[in-house]
């Protein structure tokens, strides 16, 4: 089974009424979609807003999704179109930020948009998470580190990793899982109570 087929299982569950299956898809792809949108807008907070809008659009259009393409490919197109529409609407209304700053409400809104006080703390948190993950990776046995890197950075399938590492596919599956489990353990130690704490921090 490929990643596309695995996603399709979740998509079909959403189409049958399981909203939590869509939540899994969002959790899986939210960072990729935000990264994609960041090619069009520079502000990370704005990119998150666009990604959110794209996911909601995708949910609404999901009954029409037939699985002809992979879910992420379909989601990729929706995200790009949403980002382009956002840019186009911004171009059509260049006076969007040219507001009366003497009005306290409008002034606050503009400041929120331009400065986005969430972003610095969010970026600090992100750096912290990256540090934890990288240090956890460094502490892994070589075969686990190789397996997880080939999977996450190079995007190889288990079969391809098995061929590269000259081991059975089951072993690859076990190594990748053990690598993730070790990193996850470190993350949970740092952010006890889960990553839900990050929202409170931000």
């Amino acid at each position, binding site marked *: 089974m490929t990643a596309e087929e695995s996603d399709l299982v979740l998509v079909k569950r959403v189409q049958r009424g399981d*909203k939590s299956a869509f939540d899994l898809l969002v959790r899986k792809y939210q*960072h990729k979609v935000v*990264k994609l949108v960041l090619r069009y807008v520079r502000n990370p907070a704005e990119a998150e807003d666009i990604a959110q809008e794209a996911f909601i659009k995708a949910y609404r259009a999901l009954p029409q999704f037939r699985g002809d393409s992979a879910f992420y490919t379909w989601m990729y197109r929706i995200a790009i179109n949403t980002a382009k529409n956002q840019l186009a609407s911004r171009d059509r209304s260049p006076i969007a930020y040219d507001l009366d700053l003497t009005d306290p409400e409008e002034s606050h809104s503009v400041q929120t948009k331009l400065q986005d006080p969430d972003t610095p703390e969010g970026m600090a948190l992100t750096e912290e998470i990256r540090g934890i*993950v990288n240090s956890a*990776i460094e502490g892994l046995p070589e075969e686990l580190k190789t397996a997880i890197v080939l999977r996450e950075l190079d995007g190889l399938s288990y079969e391809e990793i098995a061929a590269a590492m000259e081991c059975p596919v089951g072993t690859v599956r*076990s190594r*990748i899982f053990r690598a993730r489990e070790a990193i*996850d353990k470190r993350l949970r130690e740092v952010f006890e109570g889960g990553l839900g704490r990050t929202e409170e921090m931000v």
Partner: protein
Amino acid sequence: MTEECPSSERHGERDSQLSAMFDGELTAAECELLARRLSRDEALRAQWSRFALIGAALRSERGVILHERVAWRVQSAIAQEPSYGDASGAEGTNANTPRVPAQATPGASQSAQSPRWMRFARPAFGAGIAAGVAAVSILWLRTQEGPETMLAAAPASESITLTPEPASITVAQTTTPAVANEPAIGGTGEPERYSTPAPSSQASFAPPAHLANYVVAHSEYSGPLARRMALLGIVSNEVQPEAADAPRSEPAEKKPATGVRGAP
């Protein structure tokens, strides 16, 4: 510690399956089973999220903030949206049919069931039924009025025909005895003069005004022929006394009309 081993082994196997599912390396059947479990196990979903986070952190995606805010926002927004299909998880249902709120399309089910031609035929059927009911009602009213009314409702030209009709005399006897005794019979046995019986004031069962209102109220649903017949009945009811008195006034009234038509 040893007692926890079977449980931790089970969890280890489940988490291993979760990792494989995340990478799309689980069989379809296992994937389906685990997806069901994920739908009701928040801890497992959180672990799924952390797997995604680890991947994003490893890839060092510049500018991407590693938190769950997008997922939470989307989740809360989607909570307001309708669910698709059968939320109970019926596996055989058509997955591509969204559940539409009932109040969104009132009467949509009826229009969806009836064929297109019914939409156009329905008003015609309604008008036909209304016209039929109106015609039957008028006929019934006229039959309830009795033979006197039938005579009274007859066209004025027939009421003045100079044809000896014993029946009319008989009717006159029953209704107006004074008039019935009037005819003087000559030696030949033929009546010397003929008279039509005077219309009875009680002849009409329903007041003409009510009947007229009834016909007017139903005129939009009745056909032209039925409407014409009904109106003719009403008009003859109303104009008969005048018509009997002045039957020859009509041609005189038509003369100006012809003059007007011939005018340059």
